[in-house]
């Protein structure tokens, strides 16, 4: 059988060997914790604590104010020190709750609302909403919104995105190796919401041990199947994973639910399990700290709100001065200039590289080689879109389907002329989207 995949894509150096065989370690932060009120897509949460209040682990410190929003919980016990703007990974100043960690980790006490069998569908959605769960793969879309499609009866597949196609990242892999039953448990909770849906665990075939464990654990589950995907970036992109596993295609104006699919990332599904079955809100995630500058590349179980600087120190600090520090993977991550930023629900990795390949290579003229078009999973022609973007030629940009770009970065990666294709297209898309909003 042909391997499940999509057309296009690239095979960059994956760097996963640095951290893939290292068991997850617990990281205990010290001092100040910063909780951004906007760690998700949608309306920022509203604080329900004030300066001077003492809080416990798991206590809600900000509530959601709209349907598309998510509450925030404290991941430590301590005292609210301030409610003020703090720098986020993006470089922006974002309104945040700052808590001084007393390092006692006193908990509010976690009890599941009721056994899973006794919960109704609306109960489950409410628990997920109250637990502040958002898409932890990076997008940060509130999970309860995703799980409330217009017509739940039309959902045929629940896809667990276990591809982890982004180079260097091994957090999902470690989670699946160490706590596979929690991922499957989260899948079962979600399947309860959709009576006729089939659960798919979609795993790239560079993780054969993982595929084996999942197959073994699900062999008696008639509603969950494991599907091995070809290892290729961006196999874990939503449109590509939906296509690879179900053969259904969506474009930029559609959601997976439009073709009967819902896709959730590994950590999100585990968070669903923890919230519904164990009664614990979304307060932690697994983060890969890696790169050739990190003394001890590892995966850490990190409390949300921790500082990246402490996390780097925990991993042994830098062996050489990094030239580039990236929050996330090298393809989709965000370059940061300040390590004093907090971990959020959507953080996946901290990558410190001794060399910045981008600044070493100056762009030159396009030779029309067509490699960008060959690797583009969106099946557009990036070189021509970038030309249109350079001239702010909106008409040509739209005619050539510029809005179908998912900003995966394959074109910039592959370009022999080292053109900044993704960046040009991304800027143009932002301009057009901003215009449409007006």
């Amino acid at each position: 059988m042909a391997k499940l995949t999509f057309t296009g894509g690239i095979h960059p150096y994956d760097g996963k060997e640095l951290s893939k065989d290292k068991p997850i370690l617990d990281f205990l932060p010290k001092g100040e914790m910063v909780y951004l009120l906007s760690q998700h897509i949608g309306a920022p949460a509203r604080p329900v604590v004030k300066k001077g209040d003492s809080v416990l682990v798991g206590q809600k410190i900000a509530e959601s104010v709209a349907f598309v929003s998510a509450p925030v919980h404290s991941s430590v016990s301590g005292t609210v020190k301030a409610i003020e703007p703090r720098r986020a990974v993006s470089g922006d100043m974002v309104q945040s709750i700052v808590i001084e960690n007393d390092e006692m980790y006193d908990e509010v006490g976690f009890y599941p609302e009721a056994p899973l069998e006794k919960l109704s569908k609306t109960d489950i959605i409410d628990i997920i909403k109250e637990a502040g769960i958002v898409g932890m793969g990076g997008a940060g879309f509130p999970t309860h919104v995703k799980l409330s499609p217009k017509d739940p009866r039309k959902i045929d597949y629940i896809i667990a995105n276990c591809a982890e196609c982004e180079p260097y990242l091994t957090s999902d892999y470690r989670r699946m190796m160490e706590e596979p039953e929690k991922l499957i448990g989260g899948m079962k909770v979600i399947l309860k919401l959709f009576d006729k849906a089939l659960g798919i665990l979609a795993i790239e075939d560079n993780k054969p041990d993982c595929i084996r464990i999942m197959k073994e654990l699900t062999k008696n589950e008639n509603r969950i199947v494991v599907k091995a995907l070809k290892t290729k970036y961006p196999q874990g992109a939503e449109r590509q994973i939906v296509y690879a596993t179900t053969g259904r295609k969506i474009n930029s104006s559609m959601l997976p639910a439009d073709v009967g699919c819902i896709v959730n990332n590994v950590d999100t599904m585990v968070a669903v399990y923890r919230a519904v079955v164990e009664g614990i809100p979304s307060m932690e995630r697994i983060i890969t700290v890696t790169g050739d500058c990190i003394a001890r590349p590892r995966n850490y179980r990190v409390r949300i709100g921790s500082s990246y600087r402490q996390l780097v120190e925990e991993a042994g600090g830098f062996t050489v001065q990094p030239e580039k520090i990236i929050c996330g993977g090298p393809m989709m991550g965000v370059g940061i200039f300040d390590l004093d930023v907090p971990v959020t629900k959507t953080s996946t990795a901290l990558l410190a590289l001794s060399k910045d390949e981008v600044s070493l290579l100056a762009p030159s003229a396009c030779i029309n080689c067509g490699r960008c078009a060959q690797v583009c999973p969106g099946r557009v022609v990036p070189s021509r879109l970038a030309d249109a973007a350079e001239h702010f030629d909106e008409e040509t940009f739209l005619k050539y389907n510029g809005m179908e770009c998912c900003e995966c970065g394959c074109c910039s990666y592959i370009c022999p002329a080292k053109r900044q294709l993704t960046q040009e297209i991304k800027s143009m898309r932002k301009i057009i989207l901003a215009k449409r909003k007006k």
Partner: protein
Amino acid sequence: MSDSMKISSNPHVRSKATVSGIMAAVVVALMPAAGYGIYHFGPRALELILISIVSTVGTEFLFGLIRKKETVGDLSAVVTGLLLALNLPVSVPWWLPVIGGVFAILVVKELFGGLGQNFMNPALAARCFLLISFPALMTDFSYDAVTGPTPLAALKAGESVNVLDMIVGRTAGTIGETSLIAIVAGACFLILLGIIDLRIPGSYLITFLLFEAVFGRHGFDPAYLSAQLAGGGLMLGAFFMATDYVTRPITIGGQYLFGIFLGLMTGIFRIYGPGAEGVSYAIILGNLLVPLIEKITWPTAFGKGGGRREK
């Protein structure tokens, strides 16, 4: 934070491929053809190759001074100079590749904006320019004091030709076109490196063969067809000039269409044209149609058009 920190938008990694690397690979791939040409036609062939490369690279360098942007390092001018020399008969005077080289780089390439902006293959455009301007010099295929027709000319005149000689390259012709083995060896190297693929050469050669078989007045005569395939600039053109990135369609469907068009045009020129040759003009004409071909073969974006497709 340290000043050495770099910030940029994603992605943060780049592949190893570079423009100069690709051009260098093409030069290496042309070495068997050039080497055989030098062996077959003598040291004069080497002189012409060097003169041609010096003219193209020199023109590029001088123009770079005017543009205040030096691009010699991308090696594309070396490829143009080499290809131009391989498309010349060994009997031409030294100044012919100089004129050709200057024309290729200055008129065809730099005046249109430099690498990536030319709409015709510079080496081929220069060859056609020389063919029109100096027809006698460009069609004098005498070598070793022997004056003989090229295999294709002989074939057109109704004579029989030795196909084995054509495959090895022991025939009259331009410096780089005579040996099928040498050209195909270089092409295989590029295909293995993933620099070219068989879309254009494949559709080109198959279309040409079918056209010759149907309209060539020799039917499916294998001797005639293999002589047509091995003769003239067809192989060099199909693998090294029709595949030129800048002047071929970027769309995949367009590349097949481009190959088919070249096959048809080459067939028409060879069968019905006054000369025995037709590859250069076919490719130049094809180059001109690229924007049109791209327009009708523009790809549909992922998820656009069409409904659900179940696996």
